[in-house]
């Protein structure tokens, strides 16, 4: 049964002694990608690079693994607070001290609240927001601020806090293009004032955008030894460097995160 495929890779080295089997069973264009799902969006490589497209199952697997790497506290461990501290002094303090929620609950609450009550925006900001979103979506195909619990393609509360400053949405692009220009225009005080008075972004909105299309392609590593991953495991989609690591991969991690 063919279990390996060769993938185009600039670092590819010809490998004597064994043969790659080309995989024809996977067509990225047939994989439905749901841009509303942040977990999947998070696991999705930027741009339309065919060989990097992932199946929904792989995306879930990657998202799960990242969540594991990001975790602050192990839910399996319940460590009691030693000794006797001061007693809560008010009912309110008692309530807060007794919360056993994790950060994800608070962040989900924040997202839900922003969806319920989008902050009011000046009209120019809405215009800027729309331009910004159009720009973002042509670049990545995915609204960068969408979140996992967002049902719509765009959650108003998430992207907006940044935007009141974008009164001149094109100036940034201009300046990026004209790098020969030696001296930038002086700072306008109104512009500065509006920058300084802008409210904080929500937690989700503060995250860095996915890599731009046209940048260096995502690097792929051997799931077992960390060398370049030029071969793809057809069971789980992980990359491996050669047959030796493929055996080790199948014995340990294959399908672990699926």
């Amino acid at each position, binding site marked *: 049964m063919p279990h390996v495929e060769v993938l185009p890779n600039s670092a590819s080295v010809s*490998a004597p*002694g064994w043969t790659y089997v080309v995989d024809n069973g996977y067509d990225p264009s047939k994989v439905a990608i749901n841009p509303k799902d942040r977990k999947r*969006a*998070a696991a999705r*490589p930027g741009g339309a690079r065919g060989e990097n497209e992932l199946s929904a199952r792989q995306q879930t697997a*990657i998202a799960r*693994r*990242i969540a594991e*790497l990001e975790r*602050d*506290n192990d839910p399996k*461990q319940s*460590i009691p*607070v*030693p*000794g006797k*501290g*001061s007693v*809560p*002094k008010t009912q309110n303090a008692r309530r*807060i*001290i*007794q*919360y056993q*929620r994790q*950060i994800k609950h*608070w*962040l989900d*609450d*924040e997202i839900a609240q922003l969806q319920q009550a989008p902050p009011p925006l000046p009209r120019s900001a809405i215009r800027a927001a729309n331009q910004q979103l159009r720009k973002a979506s042509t670049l990545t195909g995915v609204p960068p601020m969408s979140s996992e619990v967002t049902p719509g393609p765009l959650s108003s509360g998430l992207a907006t806090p*940044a*935007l*009141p400053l974008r009164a001149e949405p094109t100036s940034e692009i201009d300046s990026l293009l004209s790098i020969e220009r030696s001296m*930038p*225009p*002086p700072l*306008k005080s109104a512009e500065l004032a509006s*920058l300084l008075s*802008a*409210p*904080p*972004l*929500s*937690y989700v*909105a*503060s*995250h*860095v*955008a*996915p*890599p*731009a299309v046209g*940048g260096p392609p995502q*690097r792929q590593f051997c799931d*077992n030894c*960390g*060398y*370049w991953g030029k071969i793809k495991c057809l069971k789980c989609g992980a990359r491996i460097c050669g047959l*030796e690591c493929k055996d080790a991969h199948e014995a340990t*991690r294959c399908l672990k995160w699926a």
Partner: protein
Amino acid sequence: MPPKISKKATAAAPVKTLVLDNGAYTLKAGLVAPSGTPSYDDCRVLPNCIARSVRDKCMYTSSELYQCKDFGELAFRRPVEKGFIVNWEAEKAIWEHELLSETAGEGLRCDPKDTNLLLMEKPNCPKELQKNCDEIVFEQFEFSAYYRCVGPTLNAYHPSIPSSLSSLPRECLLIIDTSYSDTTILPIYSGQLIQSAVRRLTVGGKLLTNYLKELASLRHYNMMEETYLLNEIKEAVSFVAPSTQQFSKDLERTWKGRLGDKRTVDSSIVLDYVLPDYEGAIHGYARPHDPLQSRVRRGIQPLQGPREDVLPLGNERFAVPELIFRPTDIGIQEKGLPDAIMDSLSVLPEALKLTMLSNIVVVGGNSLIVGFVERLESELRSLVPTEYLLNVSRADDPIKHSWLGAARFASQPDLMKQVLVQKAEYDERGSTWLAKRFSGGDK
């Protein structure tokens, strides 16, 4: 109305400020007197956790960990998640243990009733958590007065010229805070954070340690319960490759080859980490790789001399910290740090962007990884117009630097007067008003 005598006593002793950088991994804490000249030495670094040994059930609260002799299978409870105080039951126990009771370290113990609190938080903290925090500070701890703000912002109060006594903040400062929870980019203008330009990368020290733990467990021994040790190993052996080209070269040098194409790994880059046994040694150490050792482990070679467990580290040394520069290496769909900085600055007018680029200061524990600042600077150089001045520096003590900025701010009574909120004021006006006040909405 308090009796006259206590009023006099308060007037005699100037109110000190507890400056507290409440990180997920460590608290940075120190008491600062008005008009004093604080230094790094005034800052204590305390683990922000409660730990329990799975083996002997011993418990350690915060600084008690410094007395721990066996870090094997130590489990941690951390009140701060993603940089924000989430669990007040544990945080209260740690504050009480380290700052308020007789177990507090020398020079740290204070009575909140006659102490100000300057609490440093991460940017983009959910409002509900800020509210909980404010309420606990006044209702449970009853601090005399309080100010909460985005901690790294106060780096603007480091004098730009060392001898300068000016209390004015730096005009432009771009702080890169690469810490345990994540990596944040904070453009600061005249001591004020430009909120819309704040950017956050998921990758921080915690993720790097967990990633190394995962790799070591997959490739060598199951070390999934050895977070403390893997963090120690990460700190001892990691380096950031100077460029992506060098990264590729190092990856070749550390590759074992494949069937039919076996290679010898380059011993000048592969290290062996001698694991502590927690009997003779509490800490491990790294030494150059000895290929014989790994054969011993596999039972090919007979064992001679005392038994030791060795963890070989090849590409893990540089592939782990590489995630800050290439989060996509493990599928995190975010730009790397240099591109993220350019993203953040793209929000700013060009004149401001230009000045920010010549005033970049890196703080946070990950900046201690060998090669970090050099790689950041060289990648940024390739993204910034050639005629722009680029200046990236690492704080002398990147772990305590934000604390010291805050301490310098706290030592200036005229600055503190503008921002502190008295307990009586809180009692009268409540936490919703307080939140508005701290966010600059109500002066």
